[in-house]
């Protein structure tokens, strides 16, 4: 059989192929030839064939059938064979193939070969792709070689040991003795690889770290020699002596000096020296400076040194080389938390980097800018950042918008500025803002009472310009719904009030409903806004018409709303004003940053927030329930138990007796009439996650108490305060049953003295399972305006073992914190 074609020949041939298909054909032909050659166990040309196979593999063609051949080559005595064999093993094999284990024996033999280049090949292969099994088997050999005086082998053994440790960390101990005098070597290769080995060991084991701390003086000395020594041609790079070694030593020093005062002390001088003496005209010098800065920032360095480091970074920022600028921004980002003031000094340079052409630099600059924003520079910074937001690539807009919102929230100098800023973001990058920014913004707007007129006016004008940005449209429609009356009355103080008629406003909102640009969510907002305006505007008929049209809308959400609103017009018109009143201020759940201080809005009632208001007693309870069911939808707040308290009040007189006149939640609608059913918010605040609309601050130390314990039935009360009104105590009862039989038809009723008001929400169930297997919970809200001592009379009815049980009890042992 003719000799297989030479490697170069093959490469040349393949390169002449003009199409992919032609190439594939050639490759296939050659592969076939190689396969038959392998089958013939041809020793002479095996090396050549495998080399060709490797070339084809690099082009992307499968070469797995050559794996075993590589092993045969490795086992051969010829150096050429071994060289290609090991290369093939590294390219074609890895620990995923079982075949690789067959190498272990060969490698072992070669590690003990008489020729150092063969030993080198073995070490290299083991050090690049050795699996944990191989490493375990061969660690001893590596360790032996680590102690040899042959520096060629010693340096390779060191790196091989690094790989072994990475694969099998438990073997680290084994290499410890051999590290004893590694640093006394003169050979830079050995020094470098030794430092890498020591670094690896220190990173992985705190014990090793402690052990090697004593090397700090030696490392400092080596570094000093490198800097001070004259020109050494062998290791020189652009006038700097062995920068690779310098960088590695600096990195090891960093690890050794971290959180250790003494070590950090010992390296202060050398770090200062490197920082000041290193030539910065070429990349090489800057690479060393960079590593030095990283080390200074990580160890316990004195403040002078830290300032020096940050100034180096500041100088980097001005460097023409964008790589250097990039690296500086990254490092500054890491240090901005700890050395905030020092970094602030370079703020203007950082802001300039926002205009850089490079994407990575821009991103870093943006992150850093946000980190540097504070109360003093907010106005200036925001101007720059908003300008950036205008002109940046889409990939940045979302993050930038979020950042702007956060910063504005924390440091806004005035409400008007805050609202202006948010408006600016919504108009320029509206489609990129996060989903939760809409409810957040709405919350912010409700809190800024005096800005309502201004806000709604600006939003209205924005809507006239552009209705494509959904978040903006949603917020705008919500505001118009809420504050439409302010808009029409032209009451704006902050700027020139515009003249708008009711019809114009309704035109805009209706426009949103029909526009193709509006998403279903936006349409929902618009419809609800129109509905709300029915109590604020006089053109009720027009609104009625619109609402009824959408009663047959294809969109289910819209249809549901329209139908309910229709019902509101028809059957419950008397409730409409109450239901559609102004929203009270919303409490912010702390997602990020501190909760805002809630201002009391003069228009709404401060007492109860978002509580469902039970209908006036005159209203037949059934109808009320229907209505509330209709509006209930899918919200989280439990439906009010309205029937329960009223009936006993009229029927059974016992409850009334002992405490004199009782006032229960059935009182006619007087002062506390906030009256916004929670269903309303669930439409508007679609974007909000299902957070409860009143914030319960965790008990803050009001201890729970046992209110009743008799015949196996135990009732515990736990307390919370309802925010924002500290006059309301929210009590959760937990009823548990320690008898062997369930208590069914369990009903809990409560009454309080006249000076209190009580509201009972619906229970979790009416069966208290036996043997404490579960509890029934029910929430009571007690309004205690006069801060009197809380007393309560409770009535319990249930069926136990077939017979009905009824009991009355008085609860007097409320902890003082619950009513103070």
């Amino acid at each position: 059989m003719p000799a297989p074609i030479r490697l170069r020949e093959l490469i040349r041939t393949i390169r002449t192929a003009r199409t992919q298909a032609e190439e594939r054909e050639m490759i296939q032909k050659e592969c076939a030839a190689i396969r038959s050659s392998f089958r013939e166990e041809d020793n002479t040309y095996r090396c050549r064939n495998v080399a060709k196979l490797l070339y084809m593999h690099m082009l992307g063609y499968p070469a797995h059938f050559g794996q075993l051949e590589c092993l045969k080559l490795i086992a051969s005595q010829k150096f050429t064979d071994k060289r290609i064999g090991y290369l093939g093993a590294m390219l074609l094999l890895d620990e995923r193939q079982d075949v690789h284990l067959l190498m272990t024996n060969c490698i072992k033999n070669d590690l003990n070969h008489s020729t150092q280049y063969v030993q080198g090949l073995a070490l290299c292969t083991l050090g690049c792709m050795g699996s944990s099994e191989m490493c375990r088997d061969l660690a001893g050999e590596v360790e032996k070689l680590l102690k040899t005086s042959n520096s060629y082998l010693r340096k390779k053994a060191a790196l091989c040991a690094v790989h072994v440790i990475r694969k099998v960390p438990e073997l680290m101990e084994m290499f410890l003795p051999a590290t004893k005098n590694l640093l006394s070597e003169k050979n830079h290769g050995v020094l470098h690889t030794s430092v890498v080995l020591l670094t690896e060991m220190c990173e992985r084991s705190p014990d090793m770290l402690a052990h090697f701390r004593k090397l700090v003086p030696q490392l400092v000395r080596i570094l000093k020699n490198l800097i001070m020594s004259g020109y050494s041609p062998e290791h020189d790079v652009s006038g700097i002596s062995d920068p690779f070694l310098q960088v590695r030593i600096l990195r090891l020093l960093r690890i050794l000096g971290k959180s250790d005062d003494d070590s950090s002390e010992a390296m202060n001088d050398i770090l200062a020296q490197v920082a000041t003496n290193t030539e910065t005209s070429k990349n090489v010098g800057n690479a060393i400076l960079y590593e030095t800065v990283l080390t200074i920032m990580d160890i316990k360095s004195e403040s002078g040194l830290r300032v020096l480091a940050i100034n180096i970074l500041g100088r980097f920022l001005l460097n023409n080389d964008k790589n250097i600028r990039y690296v500086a921004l990254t490092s500054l980002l890491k240090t901005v938390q700890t050395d905030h003031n020092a970094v602030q000094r370079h703020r203007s340079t950082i802001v300039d980097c926002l205009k850089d052409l490079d994407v990575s630099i821009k991103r870093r600059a943006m992150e850093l800018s946000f980190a540097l924003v504070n109360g003093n520079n907010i106005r200036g910074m925001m101007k720059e950042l908003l300008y950036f937001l205008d002109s940046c690539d889409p990939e940045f807009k979302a993050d930038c918008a979020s950042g702007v919102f956060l910063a504005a929230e924390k440091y806004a100098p005035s409400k008007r500025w805050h609202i202006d800023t948010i408006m600016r973001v919504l108009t320029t990058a509206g489609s990129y803002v996060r989903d939760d920014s809409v409810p957040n913004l709405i919350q912010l707007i409700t809190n800024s009472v005096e800005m309502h007129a201004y806000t709604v006016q600006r939003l209205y004008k924005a809507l006239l310009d552009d209705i494509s940005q959904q978040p903006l449209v949603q917020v705008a429609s919500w505001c118009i719904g809420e504050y439409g009356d302010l808009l029409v009355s032209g009451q704006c103080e902050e700027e020139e009030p515009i003249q708008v008629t009711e019809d114009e406003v309704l035109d805009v909102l209706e426009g949103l409903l029909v526009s193709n640009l509006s998403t279903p969510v936006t349409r929902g907002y618009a419809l609800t806004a129109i509905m709300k305006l029915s109590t604020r505007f006089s053109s009720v008929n027009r609104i009625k018409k619109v609402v009824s049209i959408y009663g047959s809308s294809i969109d289910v959400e819209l249809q549901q709303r329209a139908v309910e609103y229709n019902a509101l017009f028809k059957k419950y018109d008397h409730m409409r004003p109450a239901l559609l009143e102004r929203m009270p201020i919303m409490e912010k759940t702390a997602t990020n940053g501190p909760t805002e201080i809630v201002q009391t809005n003069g228009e709404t009632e401060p007492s109860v927030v978002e509580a469902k208001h039970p209908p006036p007693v005159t209203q037949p309870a059934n109808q009320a329930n229907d209505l509330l069911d209709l509006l209930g939808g899918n919200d989280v707040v439990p439906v009010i138990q309205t029937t329960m308290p009223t009936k006993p009040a009229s029927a059974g007189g016992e409850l009334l007796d002992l405490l004199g006149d009782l006032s229960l939640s059935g009182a006619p609608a007087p002062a506390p009439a906030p009256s916004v059913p929670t269903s309303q918010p669930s439409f508007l605040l679609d974007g909000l996650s299902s957070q409860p609309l009143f914030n319960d601050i965790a008990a803050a130390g009001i201890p729970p108490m046992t209110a009743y314990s008799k015949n196996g039935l135990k009732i515990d009360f736990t307390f919370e305060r309802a925010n924002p009104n500290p006059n309301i105590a929210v009590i959760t009862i937990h009823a548990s049953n320690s008898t062997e039989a369930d208590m069914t038809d369990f009903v809990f009723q409560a009454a309080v003295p006249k000076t209190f008001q009580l509201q009972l929400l619906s229970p979790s169930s009416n069966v208290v399972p036996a043997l404490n297997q579960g509890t029934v919970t029910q929430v009571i809200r007690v309004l205690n305006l006069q801060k009197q001592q809380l007393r309560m009379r409770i009535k319990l009815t249930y069926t136990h073992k077939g017979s009905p049980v009824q009991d009355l009890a008085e609860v007097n042992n409320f902890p003082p914190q619950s009513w103070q």
Partner: protein
Amino acid sequence: MNSAHRQGKLRLQKWYTATAERDKKKMVRELMQTVLARKPKMCSFLEWRDLKIVYKRYASLYFCCAIEEQDNELITLEVIHRFVELLDKYFGSVCELDIIFNFEKAYFILDEFLMGGEIQDTSKKSVLKAIEQADLLQEVTWTPGVTSM
């Protein structure tokens, strides 16, 4: 570490972590697309997955290195440069064709310079001498009748 031609043909690739063949291909393809899309004025570093990529272009070849979070990008540029210098010294004014036709030699040089992703020897002279000696050894041990690959 890999070097790729401007049109996306791979010339050399060295992996220091065990990765499945399919994944390697995918990563290389992705990486190449990203790097080749970079404009000349952009900086030599980019973030890719959870690694940092350092790349530098020499004539028609891009040399890319993937490093970890804590590694020094600037010194990596020097590492790449050192490797190219070694190739240059060995081949005498190296050009892409040299690397194409002598890819196995390029690998030998790389394996003498780096192991497990770390530098073995910081002296150019030392690395080149070792390669030279190994080449000599190879010469000596050819099978009679066969004088080259």
